[in-house]
């Protein structure tokens, strides 16, 4: 018996250790490398940055790249634009996704499975193709403009492509499923009796929604918003394909610094700051959640 018990423990440890090891190797190690590069200076060499320790073995690091990021307004504006764009896309996803998730959660079992399948269906087609499809829709002589002109709503094409609007639509479209699925999960668990009980006790439909449905769906709302906001923040493909040359978003700047300017140290610094921008709100959110949970007990 004792042997099996300790055997169990060994396996339990292995099961826990493997994902941690995975994270350590494939997340923490690259992060350490990026951090190291961000503290170096660019040189025209292979690799294109100065080593952390110079020939004499002394530590050779500088915060120049970060200083540059803070002083050059372009970066501040780009970060801000990215936050606003990702935030707006997240809000649109929430506004579209909540009623959809609610509808799916309240549908009968057969319809529900079909609806969920339809939500996941776009993943069967390459992400890149779906973004290209939007180009076909939003072109000057694309489907949307053609239909509007045929209807006589407009007499010359609207400039939809290569605008911030196109990026916004592309982001909201691409990340909508990531909003719907966690929302669905939290709404599906919710007992409809709760809403009826609130109405029975004197709450109107709207009031019951804000008193009962919304707070109980909050974990799903938070998860969905994070799942949309974080990738939307660093999104590169959508701004590159749908946005115009002046639509500067941080994902694109990051790409350009790495591959066009070959300034790896600065690019690394951009990536580190992006990570901080994302990590700080998540940590704050987790604190808030932990605290509200404590209040609950």
């Amino acid at each position, binding site marked *: 018996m004792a042997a099996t018990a300790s055997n169990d423990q060994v396996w339990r440890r292995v099961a826990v250790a493997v994902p941690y090891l995975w994270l350590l190797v494939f997340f923490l190690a690259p992060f350490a490398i990026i951090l190291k590069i961000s503290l170096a200076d660019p040189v025209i060499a292979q690799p294109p940055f100065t080593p952390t320790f110079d020939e004499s073995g002394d530590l050779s690091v500088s915060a120049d790249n970060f200083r540059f990021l803070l002083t050059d307004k372009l970066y501040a504006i780009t970060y801000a634009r990215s936050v606003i764009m990702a935030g707006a896309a997240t809000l649109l996803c929430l506004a579209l996704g909540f009623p959809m998730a609610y509808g799916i959660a309240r549908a009968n079992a057969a319809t529900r499975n079909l609806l969920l399948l339809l939500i996941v269906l776009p993943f069967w087609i390459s992400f890149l193709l779906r973004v290209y499809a939007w180009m076909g829709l939003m072109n000057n002589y694309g489907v949307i403009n053609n239909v509007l002109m045929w209807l006589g709503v407009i007499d010359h094409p609207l400039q939809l492509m290569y605008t911030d609007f196109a990026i916004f639509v592309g982001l909201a479209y691409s990340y909508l499923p990531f909003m719907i699925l966690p929302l669905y999960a939290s709404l599906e668990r919710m*007992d409809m*009796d*709760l809403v*009826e*009980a*609130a*109405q*029975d*006790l*004197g*709450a*109107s439909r709207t*009031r019951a929604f804000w*008193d*009962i449905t919304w*707070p*109980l769906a909050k974990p799903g709302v938070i998860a969905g918003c994070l799942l949309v906001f974080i990738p939307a923040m660093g999104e590169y493909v959508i701004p590159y394909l749908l946005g115009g040359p002046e639509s500067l978003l941080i994902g694109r700047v990051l790409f350009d610094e790495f591959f066009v300017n070959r300034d790896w140290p600065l690019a690394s610094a951009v990536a580190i700051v992006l990570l901080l921008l994302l990590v700080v709100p998540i940590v704050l959110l987790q604190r808030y959640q932990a605290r509200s949970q404590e209040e*609950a*007990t």
Partner: protein
Amino acid sequence: MKDFIRIRGLSKHFGDFAAVDRVDLDIAAGELFAILGGSGCGKTTLLRMLAGFEVPTAGTIEIDGVDITHRPPYDRPVNMMFQSYAVFPHMNVEKNIAYGLRKDKVAGNEINRRVDEMLKLVQLSDFRNRKPEQLSGGQRQRVALARALIKQPKVLLLDEPLAALDKKLRERTQFELMNIQDELGITFVVVTHDQEEAMTLSSRIAVMNRGRFRQVGTPKEVYEFPKDRFVAEFIGTINTFRSEVKAASDDGLEAFSEEAGITLIAHGEHAAKVGDTVDIAVRPEKIFLDKEKPTDSGVICIPGVVDDFGYLGNRSLYRVRLESGKIVQVSSQNRRRSVTRFLEWEDEVWLSWQPASAVVLVD
């Protein structure tokens, strides 16, 4: 007594299916009324129409002289205790109970006073800051009850109030509910599938089947004088003997039963004529079992053999096989303490009952 709740011609159709079919019902103020039926009989739909969650297809509901048929749930003098209790998981006990008063914009100190009162009534004063997940099933049920009662509704609707509790707790809660009802004088309408629950709780019972009431009466009336076969079989167990009426008067009849092998006599009101085929029905506890043929005059006696039996502690159940092959269930009290059995398999016995114990069921 004045009719407090008046339901007239109430129907609810879902597509072609009539969940509730032209129901009429009067309930007096302060009554503890039970609607009893199996699953899918329409009892829950009826309750939901009273609460305002379903809009009737036809008919009217009046409470205290006011037609509330088309009022939304939040605008009715009615509150409901849900089968799942539906206690708000993100609010503590106090906030759950205060919710209804908050929605009515009652003043803060008034809310506090009434919440304290309710907490005391349901004995949860020490748990006011607990979250529902930290409560037992019985405590959650009391939160749900307090939350519904605090609004001082004219009618409290209870959907299967005891179904989720274990046996011991049910018995206690049953009496608590009755005491609270007595104390507050609020009209209770209970929906249940559990006949025992309906019998012990309520002053009157409506037995429902396929959207209609089969019988409305006191628990005794419904049990002892079932109107039809459905009611007789739904409430408790009953033995029925297919019989042909040979003679009938206003207060009794004689009918020959092939199954019983003799002519049965039943006393009491009935609606059968000579020549009709009826069921003469007798409840298991009304039948006596003896080894010798009873000598009392006027009792119905039938011989049989013990087919099977079960010991339940306070009583024993016997299945007795008649000559025709018909199995009759008999329940007898175990009045004497004994380890030896009174009867064994295949023992020859005599069944007997008073003609007044039999009920005539007309199809």
